């Protein structure tokens, strides 16, 4: 909580129960602010997609937007996985849209409305970790399902000398196992860092105004910087969603096509 004169930039990432839920497998399931914003993302995404469901021959602006996004995902799949990738489109689409809408919703200035505390779902490592874990599970399941133990040949690049194989194998295996963590951390860190940066500069503004006098210049500079970082963050929102979707499809491509 932001007590007088003390601004905690980490407060925005706290998950708090809105009302108590039930117990599942010994875990307390509460309806949290995080869940609330997840559902906000869901509703927003649904409204956005409904706008593209008019299915007109000559599309309106909204329909063009929705069709553009769908075509964008189809392109990612077609380019990185190939013709076999059609069945993975729903998952990549889910990832991209959920992450994009979560990122953007977290950047919207809802904080100026009293009582509403914006929350970025993708700033939780639990969330990005679960998304990455699902993607990685798909890679493992598809890989072993399609290729069996031949899937391990993924860790030995073509033309590796025999005496190098054990070393290369372990290195490649390690890098493969790190993938889900790097996937989850990249998004989580990008979101959390941007939000902290904005909050820190916001606290500078408050402190500078409190101090008065020549500090007004610092306040002004900080506001300029906040505007700049916000613009950058909007870009990062889209880029991180794209990177997550692209890397997921590349990893799936490894499993699907095995080199």
């Amino acid at each position: 909580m932001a007590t007088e004169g003390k601004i905690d930039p980490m407060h925005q990432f706290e998950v708090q129960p809105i009302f108590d839920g039930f117990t599942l497998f010994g875990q307390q399931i509460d309806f949290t602010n995080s869940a609330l914003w997840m559902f906000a993302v869901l509703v927003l995404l649904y409204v956005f997609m409904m706008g593209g469901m008019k299915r007109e021959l000559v599309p309106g602006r909204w329909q063009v937007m929705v069709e553009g996004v769908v075509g964008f995902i189809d392109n990612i799949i077609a380019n990185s996985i190939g013709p076999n990738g059609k069945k993975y489109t729903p998952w990549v689409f889910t990832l991209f849209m959920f992450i994009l809408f979560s990122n953007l919703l977290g950047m919207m200035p809802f904080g100026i409305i009293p009582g509403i505390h914006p929350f970025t779902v993708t700033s939780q490592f639990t969330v990005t970790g679960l998304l990455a874990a699902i993607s990685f599970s798909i890679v493992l399941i598809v890989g072993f399902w399609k290729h069996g133990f031949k899937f391990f040949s993924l860790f030995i690049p073509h033309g590796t000398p025999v005496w190098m194989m054990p070393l290369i194998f372990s290195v490649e295996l390690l890098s493969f196992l790190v993938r889900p963590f790097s996937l989850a951390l990249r998004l989580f860190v990008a979101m959390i860092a941007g939000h902290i940066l904005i909050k820190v500069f916001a606290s500078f503004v408050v402190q500078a105004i409190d101090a008065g006098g020549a500090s007004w210049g610092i306040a002004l500079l900080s506001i300029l910087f906040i505007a700049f970082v916000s613009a950058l963050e909007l870009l990062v929102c889209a880029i991180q969603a794209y990177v997550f979707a692209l890397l997921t499809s590349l990893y799936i491509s490894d499993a699907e096509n095995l080199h």
Partner: protein
Amino acid sequence: MEVYGSQFFWLLIVIGIIYFGIAKNMVPKISKTVDDRQKRISDDLAAAQAAQDKAEQIEANYRVSINDARAAAVGKVSEAKAKVAKKNEAAIKRADTAITKKANEADAALKAAQSSALKEIEAVAADAAQAIVKTVSGAKVTATDAKKAVKAAF
């Protein structure tokens, strides 16, 4: 406070709804709309191309037939011209021979008339010469002599 449980729970629900409700249900329809539109555009383009080809074919046929008709007309005209020219030539020839014949006859008649007239003049002149000689000199000139002299004078 442990929030992992509730985070996972709600995230799985939301992701599940997005996956099955939107990504598996709505996205294919949108893709299909795009594909249908693309197909319709290419079909329309193909139909337009076919129609244009057909129109060009018709125009080519029309050109060929008009050229044929023109050639036939030119042939007929020249044929008629040749026929008329032949006819004219024959008529002229006929007329020509008739005229030549008539001219020759007239020529012959003229010559006959001239010679008879000459003979008459000779006779008259001989008579006149006989009479003149008789009156002037009193000599008798025979008719044959007079005739000889006249002929010589002519």
